[in-house]
């Protein structure tokens, strides 16, 4: 009996491992590596859906250089190990380019594999570590932490004239990187960082740390982490009656920030590249409408659109060079004279794959939850 079970299980094991899927040509394959399940599932599913929408529209127009585009999605669950598996799968399925992943860690883990396989990768990951190696395959479609930090520090010290700053981040590599950078830049400009602490994402109860901050009487509280915690921080700040301005970093720019903060959202500030609803471009507005129509929900965040822009730039480069060779496309992207007009503004890249010419805005959230630009 036991022999039978063991035997059949071994057979199953062998079969399962030999299954790997065959390939077929004639189409251009685009990979999506995103956290489709797990903690960031909503961002991951958003990226997946948005990419599929763009590709659907493109295919309706006749595809890329006459080739039909096929999207292959792989779930990295927001963890490095699974990201490596997902990347290997995509490489084996011979994708030309990969969109993703959402988190810096998951974008960094397979970076070298994509480089070795000559697969283009475009990610919204903002960690500085991503462009450190200057792989020719990598294109950051968001703006690096360092740029945002410089803008933030300048805005705080020179425009708002804050004296005492409290900085909070969570434990994610992105938030820590941004928090560190902002602290450094503020101190460079002579600002006083009276508190720098970390919260545990998802913990929800931030009153202890806010009470501590209250006792230090800062002029501003800056949070570099994600909206899911930022909204609560703002809400609890108001609840605790802490009289300081609240600034959220780019990852707070999500429709859910306002929902979480509730009435406290009004009067808080965000720093980011232009947000979806504020995007001044008509085609961007159309895309947002299309997305909402197709999926019955709003686009989760600016990150979705940044990733879409990465894909659009790659498709644009392929058409300009009339080539599907990734090396040719990458060369073109690295040396664009005229930036590509993306949904999120003009896109172009330096040799390291860093996005050039990022423009940051600071917004104040109004009582009707609309954004008012207070600084560009």
């Amino acid at each position: 009996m036991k022999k039978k079970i063991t035997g059949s299980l071994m057979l199953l094991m062998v079969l399962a491992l030999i299954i790997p899927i065959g390939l077929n040509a004639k189409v251009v394959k685009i990979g999506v590596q995103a956290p489709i399940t797990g903690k960031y599932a909503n961002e991951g599913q958003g990226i997946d859906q948005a990419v599929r929408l763009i590709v659907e529209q493109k295919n309706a127009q006749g595809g890329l250089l006459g080739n039909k585009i096929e999207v292959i999605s792989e779930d990295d669950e927001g963890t490095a190990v699974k990201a490596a598996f997902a990347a290997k799968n995509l490489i084996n399925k011979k994708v030309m380019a990969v969109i993703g992943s959402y988190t810096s860690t998951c974008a960094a883990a397979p970076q070298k594999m994509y480089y070795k396989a000559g697969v283009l990768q475009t990610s919204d990951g903002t960690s500085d570590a991503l462009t450190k190696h200057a792989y020719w395959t990598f294109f950051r479609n968001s703006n690096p932490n360092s740029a945002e930090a410089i803008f933030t520090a300048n805005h705080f010290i020179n425009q708002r004239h804050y004296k005492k700053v409290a900085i909070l981040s969570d434990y994610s590599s992105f938030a820590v990187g941004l928090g560190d950078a902002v602290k450094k830049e503020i101190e460079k400009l002579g600002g006083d960082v009276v508190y720098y602490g970390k919260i545990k994402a998802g913990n929800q109860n931030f009153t202890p740390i806010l009470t501590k901050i209250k006792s230090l009487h800062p002029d501003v509280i800056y949070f570099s982490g994600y909206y899911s915690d930022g909204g609560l921080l703002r809400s609890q700040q108001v609840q605790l009656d802490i009289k300081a301005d609240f600034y959220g970093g780019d990852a707070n720019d999500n429709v859910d920030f306002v929902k979480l903060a509730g009435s406290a959202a009004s009067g808080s500030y965000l720093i980011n590249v232009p947000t979806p609803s504020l995007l001044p471009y008509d085609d961007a507005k159309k895309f947002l409408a299309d997305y909402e129509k197709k999926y019955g929900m709003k686009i989760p965040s600016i990150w979705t659109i940044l990733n879409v822009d990465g894909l659009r730039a790659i498709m644009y480069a392929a058409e300009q060079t009339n080539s599907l060779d990734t090396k040719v496309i990458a060369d073109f992207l690295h040396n664009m004279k005229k930036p590509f007009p993306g949904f999120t503004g003009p896109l172009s890249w330096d040799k390291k794959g860093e996005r050039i010419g990022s423009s940051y805005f600071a917004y104040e959230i109004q009582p009707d939850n609309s954004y008012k630009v207070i600084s560009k």
Partner: protein
Amino acid sequence: MYIFIQQVINGLTIGSIFALIALGYTMVYGTMKFINFAHGDLVALSAFVGLTIYTTVVSSFSNSIIAILISLIITIVIISIIGYLLERIAYRPLRKAPRLSAVVSALGAGMVFQNAIMLIWGPNPHYYPADIIPNKIWHFGDSVISLIQILILLLSFFIMIGLYILVNKTRTGRAIRAAAINQDAARLMGINVDAIIVIIFALGSTLGAVGGMFLGMFYRGITFNMGWNYGISAFVAAIIGGIGNIPGAMLGGIFLGLFNSLIAGYISSTWADAFTYILLILILIFKPTGILGERVAEKV
């Protein structure tokens, strides 16, 4: 001084929610002697169910307080039934199996709950409307307390008093305690131990449902994976108090809430978790059965 008072208020609020959830762990442990790892995810599920019911019924009532009370009651009923089914399907067949099998079954059940929430409500966070409880705050000195905090503290207090009376002063309560001490002896009293276990799961789920909806009302944002965090904190609270001991779970919850607040406020927020667990380990080293737990001598 106001910082201290403020931290105590903060700690008591979150602590009483921990206590409500911890009671679910401790009551199940008391009679079944295993850790119901699915409890945290059941709490998350109740937050979602509660929100859905609230948004459905709110239009029929002019007063949001009445709407929330009605949805609380409906949620309690639904979650109790789910708690009962959980016991029936995933745990009862394992009563005589090695204890760790039930633990793994509980982990599996937790996974089912979490992913079911994600499939039903989607991966996006959901939000309790901001206006359920009016956003009122009171100052005394530099410390503040909000209406919702007062409501949570009062309701938790009354629920725990109610539970205390139920367990200590009623016939069913005596049966629950008897079943926890010795199931065979309880059977000899004519107590239907299976029925008591169902009651315990229903009660634990009820308290978890209340805790889950409090979380939703207090923090507004709820996510499909929030159960694990609260589950593990509440579970630690139950252990600190002495798992299996009902007053212990209440004490442990409040204690953990206060400790978390004071550590984060006075020592270091970046090391708050480490301090919490070092405290836990120290308590267990010096008092291996928790603060109120009883020592069980090995019979030779």
